[in-house]
């Protein structure tokens, strides 16, 4: 709705709209030449800016500016201002922490950027902890998150597209990418997709993630969430796109492949031999965490003849007095482990680690002593759980946990054939996934497309000097990231 020329009418409409919102502040004042009306939301504005850069200028120093354009140009000493002509723009701005100033006889308003949100400062990363490397993490404030990324990319090609998402929440979204490296169609596609989301609120990046994923029925994340600014910046350098969602300490990186979920920031800060070994270990751990319980069931229940005799005897003697079938035994221990993990997350951090260790040991040994489960099953469940922690991405780990049960059930019903069938089904599912056109299993399949260069940063991580090319995500003509000393080049 357009603004009126009469200040009283504008004032009345704004006050009526905000009726019942006691945190919205209205102020009427004169700037000598004209009557003015100011509106802002308390506690989300920077009071000092309003006083020094707006009110002092207009009421004490200011003089003869008869309209909002004059006020904006001569009296407001704030960098970011804007003239608007509708009530909706005023409401959006006021609810975001900006201040609106209206003048008598003018159907425009000045929006002054006075945001001053309460913030908890820049925290340390809690879910993607590294030994060596930066410790800072994203906060709930989108603008700070954008700054944290920009600090690491001092390039004019870094573009930040701002959008709003959520009919009621009007959550600020910032889409960040390197204009000359990211594929244009990818950026356009993401922008279009965000604009097309028609939901009342976006409360966290997790909301947006689910709207952006093509195959939402899959347990596997097709986009990457990170709380680390260095990871986000590195992704932008690779030609990927980062989506910052206000009120969320996690940003979205897309596209993402399975390989990326095994990468940690630390991999690039330490020596390549050690980190390559860690990578191999992570892949092995992921396979073990998913397959071990199912394989145990398949072998002990259906094919004990495959197990070395000494071990088979130990397993059978261990569960001689166990009243449950192996599948129940495994499910009991796996569920207990999941409960410990879930409870550990809810507990205060100083208590949770002690709880996890004590709970695990106590429940495990008590269950064995009581004859509810055999000792090998405790080892299997614990090993499977520990292995899952070796994978750096929590979302991916959650998917692995679910898949583990799928394999357990197949193995319980069909033995070794069921085990292989379920593993194959999981692989088929992964092979059918794509993240914004990039196969999920890339570079393990489709690697021929880029001459297999992306293998250099997959199961092993080659020395940085040899990683001369950007991954598949970068646009054509921007593949070279490391300039040749003699020939120059690189982009």
């Amino acid at each position, binding site marked *: 709705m357009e603004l009126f020329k009469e200040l009283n009418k504008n004032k009345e409409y704004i006050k009526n709209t905000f009726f019942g919102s006691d945190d919205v502040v209205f102020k009427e004042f004169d700037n000598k030449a004209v009557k003015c009306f100011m509106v802002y939301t308390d506690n989300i504005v920077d009071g000092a800016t309003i006083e020094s850069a707006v009110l002092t200028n207009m009421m004490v120093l200011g003089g003869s500016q008869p309209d909002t354009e004059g006020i904006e140009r001569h009296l407001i000493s704030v960098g970011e201002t804007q003239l608007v002509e509708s009530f909706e723009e005023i409401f959006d701005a006021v609810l975001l922490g900006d201040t609106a100033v209206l003048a008598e006889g003018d159907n425009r308003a000045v929006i002054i950027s006075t945001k001053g949100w309460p913030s908890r400062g820049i925290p340390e990363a809690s879910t993607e902890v590294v030994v060596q490397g930066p410790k800072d993490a994203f906060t709930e404030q989108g603008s700070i998150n954008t700054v944290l990324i920009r600090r690491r990319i001092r390039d004019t090609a870094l573009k930040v597209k701002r959008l709003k998402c959520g009919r009621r929440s009007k959550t600020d979204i910032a889409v960040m990418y390197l204009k000359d490296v990211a594929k244009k169609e990818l950026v356009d596609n993401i922008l279009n997709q965000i604009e097309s989301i028609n939901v009342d609120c976006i409360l966290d990046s997790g909301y947006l993630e689910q709207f952006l994923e093509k195959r939402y029925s899959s347990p596997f994340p097709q986009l990457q969430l990170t709380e680390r600014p260095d990871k986000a910046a590195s992704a932008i350098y690779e030609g990927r796109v980062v989506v910052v969602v206000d009120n969320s300490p996690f940003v979205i990186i897309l596209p993402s492949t399975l390989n990326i979920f095994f990468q940690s920031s630390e991999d690039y800060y330490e020596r390549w031999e050690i980190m390559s070994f860690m990578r191999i270990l992570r892949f092995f751990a992921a396979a073990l965490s998913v397959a071990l319980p199912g394989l145990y069931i398949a072998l002990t229940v259906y094919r004990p003849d495959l197990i*070395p005799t000494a071990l088979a005897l130990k397993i059978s003697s261990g569960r001689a007095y166990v009243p449950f079938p192996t599948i129940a035994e495994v499910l009991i221990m796996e569920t207990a482990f999941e409960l410990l993990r879930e409870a550990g997350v809810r507990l205060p951090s100083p208590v949770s680690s002690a709880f996890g260790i004590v709970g695990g040991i106590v429940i495990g040994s008590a269950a064995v002593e009581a004859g509810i489960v055999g000792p090998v099953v405790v080892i299997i469940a614990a090993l499977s759980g520990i292995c899952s922690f070796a994978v750096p991405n929590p979302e991916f780990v959650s998917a692995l946990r679910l898949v583990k049960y799928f394999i357990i059930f197949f193995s319980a019903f069909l033995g070794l054939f069921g085990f292989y069938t379920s593993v194959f089904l999981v692989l088929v599912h992964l*092979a059918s996934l794509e993240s914004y056109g990039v196969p999920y299993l890339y570079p393990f399949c489709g690697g021929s497309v880029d001459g297999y260069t992306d293998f250099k940063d997959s199961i092993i991580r080659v020395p940085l000097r040899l990683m001369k090319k950007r991954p598949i995500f970068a646009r054509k003509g921007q593949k070279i990231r490391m300039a040749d000393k003699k020939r120059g080049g690189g982009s």
Partner: protein
Amino acid sequence: MNFSCNDRISNNQLRAILVAGLLGNLAVSAPLGVIEKSGSAAYISIAIGGLAAAVLFYILIKLTSAGFVKSYEDMSTESLGRGISFVLFAVVLIHIVLYGGFQLSISARMVQETMEKGVGKNFASLIIVLVSAYMAQRGSECIGRIAEIAAVLMLIFIAFIFIVSAPSMDLTVLRTTPAESRGILKGAFDAFCSMSAAGFVFMLSPKTNNTKKSAMSVFSAIIIVTAVLSFGTALSVSCFGLKEAERKLWPVIQMMNYTEFPGSLVERQEVLMSGFYVFSSFILTGISVYLSSSLLGHMFKSVKKKWPFLLASCLAVYALQYCGKDAYGDFNLIYWLYRFNPVMYIIMIISPVAAIVRRKK
């Protein structure tokens, strides 16, 4: 959208499909028949037959690739018209469904005999068909991707087994004399027939993103399969001795049981090894179901509605697995089908040749 090779299979994927699909199944079915004819020189027969098939494929694809359009079905319809292409599709369809069904039967029987005795053969077949249907429903890209992974895994395992088993080879068993040349040639012809999966090759080749290179991909795939089978046969004959190898249904697989693996955690490696054979079965059945449902879709002018044709293909493949009464019956059926493979070369090149002729006109 953002990935240049996303809507078609790559040449590497074509190679992987052929390696993963053929390797496991031929490892089971090919050596037995060839050993019967060539005796201890079976490995030479397989090498000759495989090489001949690879060269023939290379030449034929090189000559006809100029006629390739986005798929074999479109190429045939455009160049031959609906009537002739319908008949052609029917022949190819029957061949592919028979191939899929007979191989399914062998696969399921092997699952039952080496992996899980408790799982009935028909039930194992049903599971394989259902998994294959899921894969086929996801399309050729998905099959290509999964084949890339499966082929690498299979080759790594096979290479490991060969390396470990090689020291125990008795090379004296493998010596051949000129008198055996007739048997070698007979065996080579059998090997050539079994490697000549022309229906699959000529239906998949036009789907690649660079058809100019598909001849090389097919050639290298057949050479890889030939090398593995030839070495595997030599290994099993030398390890078991000729008579024992002739008696065994799947000598290459059973050989794993007699191999000492350093630091092995399991006692019967051949059972774990047959797991990779199961992967191969899934891929071969999946590609059979996918190609046959695609042919049916084109035959009945309903390319978009996939489900009815997928279901029909699955049912046909599943029904055919009932044909073999026992393992030897299954092998006889598949050998009988292999004999038609040379004819399939001629049938499959009709469309690309017609397309080239039409373009020149």
